[in-house]
């Protein structure tokens, strides 16, 4: 009974978080380019010549990816979907299904703009996946564990944002690439007619909207877990702290993203290879040195 209650609480809290994200995201945007947050057509449209298996599978894969990845995010000291030993690695792997979903939808709908969106999102995957891994290695090194609850409890004395500011900056940038928001919204940009979003109408479009907003919410939540100490905090209950930190990271991500020039996919790859990967390697070296000096690591 307790398990069912906590499961219901987890599902409710994540649904509420996604809905709040959908509501507040237009308020944070200052440009016309809304990218993945733009509205899909209201009527139930269907492409003329789709690969119907892939086209219909895509929104389901996207929603399943978002839901399965949110399992390992701890909301409170005793409230989490599952606390598995390789939690963080699981999160990084499962969230890549979103790219698969966009590729399926883009190829399946068989419209030139959406196929272009499919190509560009795969190139974006190549751009972000290595620096993202290098950014999250820092907390894993200091906590000596990949379990999300262990990472939070190892931050009881010092948050990792203090000891690893470079890692946090890398996580924010690669997180923006991962959720396809402001400077990195090439696959969903206006010149591609919003990519796959314009080919899905009705309830399928709403499924896309939920999963593309939910991924922003859970990536921000994972940022709060990794660098801001998750649910830990004085006076208020744990899940309130978690919500505050999550939305702080979310607003920071959107705020930084709105202030940058939009980058094309080629520029993203250039940024990744020339700046982010060297910075990530430097971050790993710095964290190793800090651990040897006795900061953070126990």
């Amino acid at each position, binding site marked *: 009974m307790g398990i069912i209650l906590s499961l219901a609480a987890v599902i409710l809290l994540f649904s509420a978080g996604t809905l709040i994200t959908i509501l507040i995201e237009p308020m944070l945007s200052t440009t016309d380019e809304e990218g993945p947050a733009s509205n899909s057509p209201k009527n139930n449209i*269907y492409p*003329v*010549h*789709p*690969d*119907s*298996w*892939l086209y219909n599978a895509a929104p389901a894969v996207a929603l399943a990816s978002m839901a399965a990845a949110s399992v390992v995010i701890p909301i409170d000291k005793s409230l989490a979907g599952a606390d*598995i*030993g*390789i939690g963080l*690695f*699981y999160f*990084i*792997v*499962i969230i*890549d*299904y979103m*790219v*698969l979903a966009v*590729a*399926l939808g883009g*190829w399946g709908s068989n419209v030139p703009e959406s196929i272009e969106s499919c*190509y560009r999102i*795969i*190139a974006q*995957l*190549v751009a972000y*996946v290595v620096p993202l891994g290098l950014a999250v290695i820092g907390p894993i090194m200091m906590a000596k564990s*990949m379990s999300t609850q262990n990472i939070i409890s190892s931050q009881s004395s010092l948050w990792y944002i203090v000891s690893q500011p470079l890692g946090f900056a890398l996580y924010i940038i690669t997180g923006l690439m991962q959720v396809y928001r402001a400077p990195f919204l090439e696959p969903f940009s206006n010149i591609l007619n919003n990519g796959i979003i314009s080919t899905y109408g009705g309830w399928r479009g709403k499924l896309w909207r939920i999963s593309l907003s939910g991924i922003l919410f859970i990536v921000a939540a994972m940022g709060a877990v990794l660098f801001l100490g998750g649910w830990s905090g004085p006076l208020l209950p744990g899940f309130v702290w978690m919500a505050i930190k999550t939305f702080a990271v979310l607003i920071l991500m959107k705020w930084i993203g709105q202030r940058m020039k939009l980058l094309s996919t080629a520029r993203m790859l250039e940024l990744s290879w020339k700046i982010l990967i060297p910075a990530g390697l430097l971050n790993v070296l710095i964290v190793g040195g800090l651990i040897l000096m006795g900061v953070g690591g126990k």
Partner: protein
Amino acid sequence: MNLGEAAQIFAFGVFAFISIAGALGMTTTMSMFRSGIFLMASFIGVAGLFILLMADLLGMLQIMMYIGGMLVMILFMVLFSNDPGGDMMASMKMPFLERFFSSGLLPQKKIHRDSHSHHNSRNNNNQADKDEGMNMGMDMSMFTSLKPYAAWIGLTVTIVFVLLFLLFPDWPVKNFIPDQDSSHRIGMLLMGKYMMAFEGAGLMILLGIYGAIYLARPGKHPDSKDRNDPSSINEEPPQAAEDPIEPFYNINLKELYEKSEDEK
């Protein structure tokens, strides 16, 4: 049988089905993109089997490799050959399995035929006949003669494995609980006992990347002179037909202006 065991058997059935059906779809579908996706599904089913055997890290590694790797592979495949097969093949005669795994590639409504049937001009009918003829040609070329042999070999191997399993059912099962912190254990092994192999693999990959970049950049000394030869020849465009109207850019505007001035 308690609930846990039942769930385990159910999960095994689901993952085994995904991996076998994915492999079958990969070999029989007519669309290259679908073929790659089916292969990915098959590997993800195998990853599920790893997780059932409590090798969660191995399962996750398998998924990570095959989502990113397979998507990039499909991208290159499609960019180089532009998905032959696909919807063009879906309308031809096929055996049951190929028809099933290629279903849904067909257009929902036959728009071209409907629009053409309204104008019953000779030209359109000829075009439709030509299309059908081309499909027939494709029909013949798509069926590889080796496919039945491959299917028979696969079936034989499967039967041998099933027979082995039935004849020698006493497989050793160790009553052993795997290490919960398997990532730590694997990391220690990779950096301790198997360090030379691990670092050697890293060096090989680095050399591979270096070699690929070196081959891709334009060199000063190509190994063959033919490399510099153009692969296509610039052909002179054919002469334009005589045009009775004088081209616009040949008209001298100044002269025209002066003429009109004179007339005034």
